[in-house]
């Protein structure tokens, strides 16, 4: 190596030495400085006491001069903006009154579920999740991380809440979330097309509906009257199937064990046979097997279908698009009755409840917030029901009565509320049913029957075996 290069190498070595030494000195100075600042910090002031309106003998303690207590809230983005705005306005109104800091994080609903799981796993759950995964976080006592809210429900008015809706967040007699408004998956019904073929009133039974749809098809060959979602994406396919199935006498779950599964029964076979009949008569759009969430929405909005099972998010879209002709021609009604007179609506596998994590340092504050938000039923009605065209089924009986006064269209929609169920007939959260729904197992049966052309009974039996495996794994028996 040349002399010059050797010299250069020596200088570089010195340079590295000095930089390293400098970094060590800086780190040491920072550590000393931090230690000194901790030692000389003034002690926190003594807290003062504020009595709140929570109807227990507990008091909520807040510090008035030191750090404000803080609530972290994980919220979903809402289909109708008004719902999000209502919630946030009520939260900030309460926060200002109570001197509490709130931090609301808003995420799309699909991301919200994953985020909740990640935060619980990390040991840093939010104080409040809206909506929370009640099935995952409350059903099993071993993984239960939610706080019971019976005192909150009592304060808001338990008698004013529909029992079928309250059950959606109940486990072992306790309520772990307040279902804010489960999806009201009624029928969007083109009354103009049905009136054309002689049906002045909506058909009363599914068999009458089939006859009416056939007549519509004869009159309008390019229309596929029944926009039934038959995909297996674990979205609209769930409640599309369950609504029909429960009307035909089907039961999702009766108890939390393998004995509680009733898939391989005549009602299920009858349901799939009914759909197969509609499929073979070209009453269902040929791409319905592949539909994800928006498939049936698009079918109705484009005029391809005359009847779809969906929450009034479609009607909301119609109004947003100012398609007043379609709005006038649309009724939102309960489904027809099944062969034995059953008539039920599935809200899907998630009840969209607001819930509090029991690890929260401010459980009482969180409860007080929920009471504040939901006690104002007038604001709830305007934002969650009227502004969204009934997208969410109102949970309060008094609200339903007030909404009906808006007119006959609203009356028909509100008549559906007592029919809205979740995991019928158990009515309570079930991780097994969630897994079955998310995996699109109902939709896969359609594929087996229509694409693989196996008999309905065999396809139902196969699916039943797979569901049984899930039930046994989740419930241990």
């Amino acid at each position, binding site marked *: 190596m040349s002399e010059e290069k050797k010299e250069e190498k020596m200088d570089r070595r010195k340079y*590295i030495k000095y930089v*390293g030494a400098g970094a060590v000195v800086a780190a040491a100075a920072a550590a000393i400085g931090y230690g000194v600042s901790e030692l000389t910090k003034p002690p926190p002031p003594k807290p003062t006491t504020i009595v709140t309106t929570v109807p227990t003998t507990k008091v909520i303690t807040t510090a008035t001069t030191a750090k404000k207590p803080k609530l972290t809230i994980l919220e979903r983005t809402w289909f109708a903006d008004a719902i999000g705005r209502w919630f946030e306005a009520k939260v900030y109104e309460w926060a200002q009154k109570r001197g509490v800091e709130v931090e609301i994080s808003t995420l799309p609903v699909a991301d919200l579920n994953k985020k909740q799981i990640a935060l619980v796993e990390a040991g840093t759950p939010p104080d409040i999740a809206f909506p929370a995964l009640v099935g995952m*976080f409350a059903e099993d006592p071993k*993984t239960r991380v939610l706080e019971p809210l019976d005192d909150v429900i009592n304060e808001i008015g338990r008698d004013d809440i529909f029992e079928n809706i309250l059950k959606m967040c109940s486990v072992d007699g306790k309520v772990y979330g307040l279902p804010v408004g489960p999806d009201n998956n009624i029928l969007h019904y083109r009354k103009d097309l049905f009136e054309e073929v002689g049906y002045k009133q909506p058909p009363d039974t599914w068999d009458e509906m089939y006859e009416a749809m056939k007549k519509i098809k004869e009159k309008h060959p390019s229309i596929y009257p029944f926009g039934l979602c038959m995909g297996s*994406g674990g979205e609209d396919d769930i409640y599309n199937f369950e609504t029909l199935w429960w009307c035909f006498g089907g039961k999702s779950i009766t108890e939390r064990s393998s004995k509680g599964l009733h898939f391989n029964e005549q009602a299920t076979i009858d349901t799939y046979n009914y759909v197969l009949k509609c499929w073979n008569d070209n009453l269902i*759009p040929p791409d319905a097997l592949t539909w994800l969430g928006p498939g049936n929405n698009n079918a109705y909005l484009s005029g391809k279908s005359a009847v779809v099972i969906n929450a009034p998010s479609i009607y909301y879209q119609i109004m947003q698009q100012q398609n007043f002709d379609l709005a006038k021609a649309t009724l939102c009604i309960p489904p027809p009755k099944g062969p034995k007179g059953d008539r039920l609506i599935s809200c899907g596998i998630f009840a969209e409840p607001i819930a509090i994590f029991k690890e929260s340092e401010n459980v009482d504050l969180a409860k007080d917030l929920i009471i504040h938000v939901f006690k104002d039923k007038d604001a709830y009605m305007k934002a969650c029901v009227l502004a969204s065209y009934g997208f969410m089924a109102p949970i309060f009986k008094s609200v339903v009565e007030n909404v009906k006064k808006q007119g006959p269209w609203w009356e028909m929609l509100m008549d559906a509320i007592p029919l809205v169920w979740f995991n019928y007939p158990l009515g309570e959260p079930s991780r097994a049913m969630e897994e079955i729904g998310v995996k699109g197992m109902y939709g896969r049966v359609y*594929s087996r029957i229509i694409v693989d052309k196996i008999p309905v009974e065999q396809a139902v039996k196969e699916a039943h075996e797979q569901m049984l495996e899930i039930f046994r794994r989740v419930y241990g028996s």
Partner: protein
Amino acid sequence: MKLQQKNDLYGFLLVFPSFIILGLIFFYPLFYTLFLSFYEKLAGGEAKYIGLQNFVKILTSKSFYNSIIVSTMYTVIGVLGKLLIGLSFALFLNEEFKGRRFLRGIIIFPWVIPVFATAMIWYWLFDLQLGPINIILDYLFKTRIQWISPDYALLSIIIVQLWKGIPFFTVCLLAGLQSIPKELYDAAEVDGASSWKKFLYITLPGLKYIIASTSLISGIWTFSEFTAPYMLTRGGPGDKTELIAIHIYKETFSRYDFGYSSAMVICLLPFLLPFILYILRSMGR
């Protein structure tokens, strides 16, 4: 301490912080996943040691093997398609013609569009009633294709993969083509070699290593692809397009058992490891 040892120590100290970061973001998750695969770990619950039970369940699961088969078909057909079409584009763009620069820029366009936007665009393009592809097919041939049907769903997601992935191959192969000395072609021309012979005996050997490494890297990425196929089909209809990544995702967020999901990821390693090792060896060479 000897001079060489001192130099080594300085070098080690300087890379040590990077090594810590690499350890935290790579080795720790890897070893934790391996550790978790021997446990049942429900969200919010305690981990329970269950030995090899997760692996037994996975290796006896029809749906796991179905997803491996679907992913393999998706990868092999997709990578071959990208290679052939990418090579054609690269050969074309290697020629001198007016507008070549513009075309070279445009070709990257699908690559830069975010994956979710790609999926949304193609979801609309494939629509049976409103999609432009079917409107054109109906106009020209009086027929429409249900792209996301059980018969065509896998083909549909492969088409999307091709559209998105061809630019990567084109760019890599074009760079490779430009590194082949022109004198070889001139010499072949003098000897009377045809275009096909030049391609066989000059171009392909010159691109050998680039083709191998690009295909392998693309293969590894494609095998673990998730976003676009999930957005288009959610793994359906049925399980026709349930790629392994979609399968793992669905199992994770329906069972909420992270031990099982970790075991599925570990079961994937034997499929990917040979390719990873080959690439590492080639890079070393």
